[in-house]
């Protein structure tokens, strides 16, 4: 009799459990998939554009999506990830706030069975994110470095204004540029200083650098905001016509400045391509694909006066 009760209880549990799993599976299959789009900051139009394009592509593929703004704060980002996991999101398109600080969030989501596709910024851990779709900043800056050498005719003094020193993009861009320019001993870097990707800081940095090095011939900046700041400082000191300024990003004001001959060149990034690829990868993941490239570089194109007519902010003209 005792065995019989145990036997019946076990059978009940098995059937109940199976029924429960069946209900859950049915519910998961029936409801539309949801995609969370977690962005480092929506205080920068470049990232707003990235989020919009990811949202558009997710909708086009038939998925619900919601954009979360981390406000450049990893704690906020962690809250968004916890929320996304608890709310049953099926994939996360992710623009990390911090290459190291964001790793734990990616790990938590992937452990919960949610694929994470990084866009534009990477996390410093291989094989954690499902895939990382990133601008090929290094190669873009190789092209800029080559043009820099050509326009300065292999000789002269120059300064480099770096982005945030803790950001991988800062060093990928700097390394790409130096992989070319350092071949030419006639080109001397007289100063290298960070301005945190900020236009006003770059203007201040350039003002002080010009006092110490009034005879420079070129400036390489890690992004376009800093290129504009450096250019403003050069205008104020009356050296804008002599000193050649190079940026990176493909921002609207720099594209216009290249047309006007104020800035020499920039590296055009394609946030739309990155956002669309991330959303497409999520779609493919839902359909069963698992072998995604760990890192997918997106080509950066150099924009200069002789091809600027092909480009507008954040990519090509329609």
């Amino acid at each position, binding site marked *: 009799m005792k065995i019989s009760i145990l036997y019946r209880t076990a059978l009940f549990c098995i059937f109940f459990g199976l029924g429960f799993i069946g209900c859950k599976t049915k519910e998961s299959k029936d409801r539309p998939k949801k995609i969370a789009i977690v962005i480092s900051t929506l205080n920068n139009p470049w990232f707003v554009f990235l989020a919009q394009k990811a949202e558009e592509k997710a909708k086009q593929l038939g998925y619900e999506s919601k954009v979360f703004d981390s406000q450049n704060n990893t704690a906020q980002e962690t809250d968004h990830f916890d929320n996304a996991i608890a709310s049953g999101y099926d994939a996360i398109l992710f623009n990390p706030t911090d290459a190291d600080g964001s790793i734990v969030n990616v790990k938590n989501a992937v452990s919960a069975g949610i694929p994470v596709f990084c866009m534009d910024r990477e996390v410093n851990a291989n094989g954690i994110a499902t895939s990382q779709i990133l601008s090929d900043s290094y190669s873009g800056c190789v092209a800029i470095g*080559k043009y820099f050498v050509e326009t300065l005719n292999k000789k002269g003094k120059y300064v480099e204004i770096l982005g945030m020193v803790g950001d991988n993009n800062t060093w990928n861009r700097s390394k790409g540029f130096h992989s070319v320019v350092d071949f030419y001993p006639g080109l001397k870097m007289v100063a290298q200083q960070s301005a945190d990707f900020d236009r006003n800081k770059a203007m201040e940095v350039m003002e002080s650098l010009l006092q110490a090095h009034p005879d420079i011939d070129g400036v390489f900046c890690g992004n376009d905001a800093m290129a504009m700041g450096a250019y403003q400082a050069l205008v104020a000191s009356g050296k804008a016509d002599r000193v050649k300024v190079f940026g990176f990003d493909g921002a609207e004001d720099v594209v216009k400045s290249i047309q006007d001959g104020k800035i020499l060149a920039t590296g055009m990034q394609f946030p739309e391509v990155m956002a669309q690829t991330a959303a497409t990868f999520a779609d493919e993941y839902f359909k069963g694909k698992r072998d995604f490239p760990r890192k997918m570089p997106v*080509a950066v*194109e150099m924009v200069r006066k002789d091809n600027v007519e092909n480009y507008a902010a954040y990519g090509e003209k329609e």
Partner: protein
Amino acid sequence: MPKPIRYLIYAAAIALLAYNSVYFKKLDEVKAGNTVFDAAGYAKDFWEKKLTPGLSKAMNLNALTSLLKADKEKAFNEHSHALGIGNIRYFLVKGRGVVTDVDENEVSVQLTDANGKAVTPQVRIATEYIFGNAVRDASGAIDINAFANSMDFNNVSAEINKIIREKVVPPFKSKVQKGDRVAFHGAIELNRAHLQTGNIEIIPVSLQIEKP
């Protein structure tokens, strides 16, 4: 249980625990596991085992430019490669021509057809600015998933370019003159969205000055 047997069991248990708690490995094996990616070795291997044997598959540049005019999409879809995504694509090409100019950065070449007759376009063989990913990507023989991080495949490009700069360019650059007939294999970069075939730059993989 007799004391000796009990002690024997205790000793066996401790020995078993100790054996499973400590592992000994040869230092060489540990060091091998922590080695950084050898970009120079990878580039040399790629050059000798994949790129050079694969040059027979290079497309004739005259045929490629004709195909680009007739059917751009087909030309890019069937003959271009790139490790990443975007408009920048690379082609492995070959051709012959007559040198029209030699300067410190490049050698200008007027392409010729099989009968030695001049055909458009004029191209430039780079001899100074050997940079970028053209040669690494053009053959399509490298898989991006073989690399643990992006700096590894950037370094592979740099090492391939170093081979070209040190072994391919110097013997050619020291002898080439205006009017020479030359044959080349190399890689070119083209932008799929903004195609320009009038000013093609070739990053050379092999260069020969042929007898007139």
